C-alpha cells in the first residue's frame, strides 16, 4: 500500500519538472558543425571532383563499407570511376574523412537516412557528390601535386620550378630560360 502511494507521489513530483523529450521531427535538435553524419564527396574550388581515388578512405574504413575504382581522364587527372558507400554498414566513425588527403570525403550534419529497404542505403557516386567544397573551402589538391593535369602543366603547381631543360649544357637551366 505504502509503495503505491510512494509511486503516485513520485509521478506527481515529475509533473512539475522541465521536459527533456525533444518533439522530433517538429522540433529540430541542435547539431554541432563537426557532427559525423551522412558522408558526401565534395568538389574543389574550380568545380572539379576532389576525389583522386587514392583508396585511403576505403582502407581506413573499419567496416570496409567503401568500395571504389580509380580511372583517369585523358590528361592524367585521376578520379573514381565508381564510388560506393554501403551505409547499412557504415558506423560514422569519420576515419575516412581523417584519411582523405584532398578533403574530398566529408561527414555532414545530416543524419536522417532511415530507409525501409536496406538496399536503398547503398549510395553511389551520384548520391554522394555535392556541388560545393563542403567544410573546407579553398583547397585544390592538383594545384599542390607534381602531376600535370588539364590546365596545369609541369612546373605550374605551387612552389615549383619550371621543368629542367635537359638538352642545355648549363647545369640546372630551366625551359623558361630558353
Amino acid at each position, binding site marked *: 500500500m505504502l509503495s503505491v502511494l510512494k509511486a503516485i507521489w513520485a509521478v506527481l513530483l515529475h509533473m512539475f519538472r522541465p521536459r527533456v523529450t525533444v518533439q522530433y521531427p517538429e522540433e529540430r535538435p541542435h547539431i554541432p558543425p563537426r557532427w559525423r553524419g551522412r558522408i558526401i564527396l565534395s568538389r574543389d574550388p574550380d568545380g572539379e571532383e576532389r576525389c583522386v581515388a587514392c*583508396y585511403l578512405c576505403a582502407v581506413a574504413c573499419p567496416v570496409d*563499407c567503401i568500395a571504389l575504382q580509380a580511372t583517369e581522364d585523358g590528361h592524367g587527372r585521376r578520379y573514381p570511376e565508381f564510388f560506393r558507400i554501403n551505409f547499412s554498414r557504415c558506423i560514422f566513425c569519420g576515419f575516412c574523412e581523417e584519411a582523405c588527403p584532398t578533403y574530398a570525403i566529408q561527414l555532414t550534419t545530416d543524419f536522417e537516412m532511415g530507409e525501409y529497404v536496406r538496399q536503398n542505403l*547503398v549510395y553511389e557516386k551520384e548520391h554522394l557528390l555535392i556541388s560545393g567544397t563542403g567544410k573546407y573551402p579553398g583547397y585544390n589538391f592538383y594545384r599542390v601535386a*607534381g*602531376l600535370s593535369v588539364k590546365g596545369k602543366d609541369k612546373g605550374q603547381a605551387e612552389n615549383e620550378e619550371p*621543368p629542367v631543360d635537359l638538352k642545355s649544357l648549363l647545369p640546372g637551366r630551366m625551359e623558361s630560360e630558353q
Partner: protein
Amino acid sequence: MDGKKTVTIYVEGKPHQVEEGKNLLDACLSLGYDIPYFCWHPAMHSVGACRQCAVKQFRDEKDTRGRIVMSCMTPAADGTRISINDPEAVKFRASVIEWLMTNHPHDCPVCDEGGECHLQDMTVMTGHSYRRFRSRKRTHRNQYLGPFVNHEMNRCIACYRCVRFYNDYAGGRDFGVFGAHNYVYFGRYKDGVLENEFSGNLVEVCPTGVFTDKTLKRHYTRKWDLQTAPSICVHCGLGCNTIPGERYGTLRRIRNRYNGEINGYFICDRGRYGYEFINNENRFRFPVRLERHGDGEKTGTFGSGEVIPHIKSILQRARGVIGIGSPRASLEANFALRRLVGKERFYQGTSAGEARIMADIVNILGNGPARTPSLRETESCDAVFVLGEDLTNTAPRMALALRQSVMQQPARLAAGMKIPRWDDKGFREAVQNNKGPLYIAHPHGTKLDDAAAAVFRGAPEDIARLGFAVANLLDDNAPGPVKDLPGEASSLAEEIARALENAEKPLVISGASLKTPALIHAAANIAFALVKKGKPACLSYAAPECNSMGLSLMGGAPMEDALKTVQAGEADTVIILENDILAGQMAPDQAEALLSARNVILIDHLPGRTSSMAGIILPASTFAEGSGTFINSEGRAQRFYKVFDPSGDIQESWRWLRDIMVDMAYPGASGWLTLDDIVSSLSAEIPGLRAVANAAPPEGFRMAGMKIPRQPHRYSGRTSMNAALNVHEPKPAEDHDSPLTFSMEGYAGQPPSPLIPRFWAPAWNSAQAVNKFQPEVNGPLRGGDPGVRLFEPKENALMDYFGKEIPQAFTPEKERLFAVPVYHIFGSEPLSSLSPAIAGRIPAPYIALRPEDAEKMRVPEGHVIELPPFGSLSVRIDGSLPEGLAGIPYGLPGLKDMELPAWINSPAAAKKGGQ
C-alpha cells in the same frame, strides 16, 4: 656460407656470426635489423651513392666516439663494432632523407607506388614526418616509354638503381642518365619504347614512383586491395614464380615472386605484361554447343547440369574416343584426360618433331650424367655454349642469367685485386669490358650476341655439326670427327672446347625451338664428354611451353598418330585439352582432318582457330582461376594456386573431365574431390612424377590451426564491393584444393615458401620486403625455395653418346630457301599475344632475307610479298643470316603457319608495291 670464413661482429654490442667480407648492410638485414637504404639492391650490390644506410662504427669496445660509415660499403671483419641506433647516425640518416625529399612532389595519393613504396617505408623508418623545405621544387618533363612502363620523373630521388639495372644488369642500351646534381634525369635520349625485354623490372627496382606499371594504371588498384596467390608464369618453359593480383573479378597485374633458384628478383616483360588475356571479353564462361547444318552454324549454351549428360551420351555412342593433351595445361588436367580416354588413346598435343625432342630431353636429363642447373646455378657457370636457341626470345629469363654468368671469369680478376663482388662500381671498374666465354651458335643474330665471346651462324645442321665437333675434341670416344668442317668452324670448335674444358663449371644450352633433334644430341654429347673429364658440367634445355616437360614425362603419342587413329576409323570422337591445334602444332590440313572427326569436344578458355571447329566447348580456368602443377625446363615441379574464383561455369579442366568420368561411373573418379586426390593418384600411377606430391603442402596444412589468407590484412571494400547488386554480402568462395583462403582472415605470419601469397612485412610494404623472408639476403627463402626437382644425375650415371649419324653439312640451293623460325618474345607465344600491352609490341609478319638474296629478288626492305602458305610478308633484310637461309617469325597472330624449319620456294617478288 659454404667454405667462407665466419667472423663475429657486434651490432649494438651484441655479437653475431656473419660471413667475412660481406658488407654490413647485407649482414645486418640478414640478421633481421632494419637499416634504411636506396641505392643498394641485393642483386645489384652496393655503390654507396645515396648515403642512406649510414651507421656508426667503433674501433673497439673502448671507443665511444666512433665514426659514421656507409654500411653498404663497409666489409664485416672480425670484431667490427657498429651501432645502428646511435643518435648521431640516426640524425645523419634523417638529414639524408630530408634532402632526398626536398624535390619529391606531393603526389602520394595519385601515385601508383603509394602503399608499396620503398621511399615511403624508408621515410617512416627514419622518422622524417614533417617537411621543413619551403623552397621551390625542381620539375621534369616525362617521356613516353612504351606500353609497359609509365614515367613520372618528378618523383625521382636519384638513387641510380634504374640505370644500374637496365644497363649494367640487363644489358640495355637505350636508357641512361642525363644532367647533373639536382637535375639528373633518367630516361631515354628521346621518347620511345624501352627496347630491353626486362624493362618491367624498373617498376620494382625503382624505390619510388618514377617507373610504374602502365597496364596496372588502366585498372589501378593498391597493393592492399589485391587478392593474390602464389603462381607460375605460363609464357615460357622456365617456370618463373609470379604473384598475380585480382580485384573485382579481373586480374590487375603480375609481380615477381622471389624464388632464389629460378627468377630471383626479376622476370621478363612477357611474364609481367602477358596476363591480360585472362580479362579478355571473349572468354568462354559457359559450356557452348556449336551445331553445323549444311548452310550455317548455330551456337547455343547449355543449361546447368545439361552438358555432362550430353557428353556422356556422345561418348557412349562413340566408336572410340581419343584425347589430345596440351603442353600448356597442368599435369592434373593432362592426367585426367589420360584417365578418361585411356593411356593408349592419350596423345600429346604436340607435333611428332616436338614430342620426339622433348622425349629425348627427358631421357637425357633423367638418365644422363649431366646435371640440369637452376637459373641461379646458370648465373654461376663460367663458360657457356648455346646451340641453336635464341634465349632472349624463347626463354628470356635465362638470357638474363647468362648476362650474369659472363661476369664469372672476369670476377676472378676483381677477386685478385681484393675487390669484393658487392662493391659494384669497383668491380665493374676492375672488370672493364672483359667477358667470360659465352659462345652462341644460331642461324641469325640474337640480342645476346653482344655478351658473347664469339658467335657462329649456320643452318641448324651446321650448328649441330659444330656441337658434335666440340664433343669429339673433348673426348675421342664421342662420335666424330666431323668431316668437312670448314676451317673457321673447326678453329671455333677448338676454341669452344678449350674454354669449356678450362672452366670450373661449364654449361651447355640448347632447346626445342629449332625443332632439330641433332642439336639436342650434340649438346648432350658435349656435356657428357665434359662430365667424363671430371667437370661438373651442366646441361640446360629450353622447353617450348610451361608444362612441356610434364607432358613429356607423362608420355603419349604425338598428334600425327591421333590423326591416323581417326582416319583409320578407330575413333570418331576427339577431346582436346587447352590446345589450339590449328594454330601451329601440326600442319593445318592435318589439323583440319583431325577436327573433322564426328564429335570434337574442346576444353579451353579462349576462342581460337580450333574452337570454331569444335562441337562442344567447356570453359576451362586459366592459371589464375585454378590450381595445378607445372614442370619447368629444369624439371622442377611447381604448384600454382587459384588467385580468384571465376564467374560463370568456369572450372579447372581436370574437374570437367572428372565430372564426365563420375557421370560415366569410372572406377575411382568420384574420389577425385580435391587437387590433392588427383595429385596423389597421378604421382602413384606415373613413376617419373612421384615427387610431384611434395611440390607444395597439402590442403590440410595449417599454420597455428589457420589457413593462409589470399587477401592482405588491409583488404578494403569487403562489405561494399558487391553491394550494388545485393546489399546482403555473399558467402566467400571456398577453397578445398589448397591451404589458402579467399579471405583476409587467417595466419598473419610467414607461410612456407610455396604458399607465400605476397611479400609484405611490418614496416616493409614494398617488394623490398623479400629480405624479411630470407634467412640470408639474396639466398633461398626461409625453408628452401619452392618446387621439387625431378631430375638429379645418379652417381656414376652413364649414357652412350648420341649421333651414330652426324648430320650432313647444309648445302644452299638456288631455287629454294631454307626457312628457320625466328622467335619473338612478344608474338611467338599465343596467350600473351592476346594482352593489349604485348599486342602493341608484336612485329608485323615478315620474311628475313639476306641482303644478297633480297638484291637478287629485287625486293627492298619493307616490300610486301605474297608467300604461300604464310600470306603477305614484308621483307626484312638481315645481314646475319648465312647463305641459303631465310627467317620467318614463329607463331605470330594472323600468320598462317607451316612447321618450320622447312624448305620454301624462293619468294618471287610480287608486285604489290612496298611501303
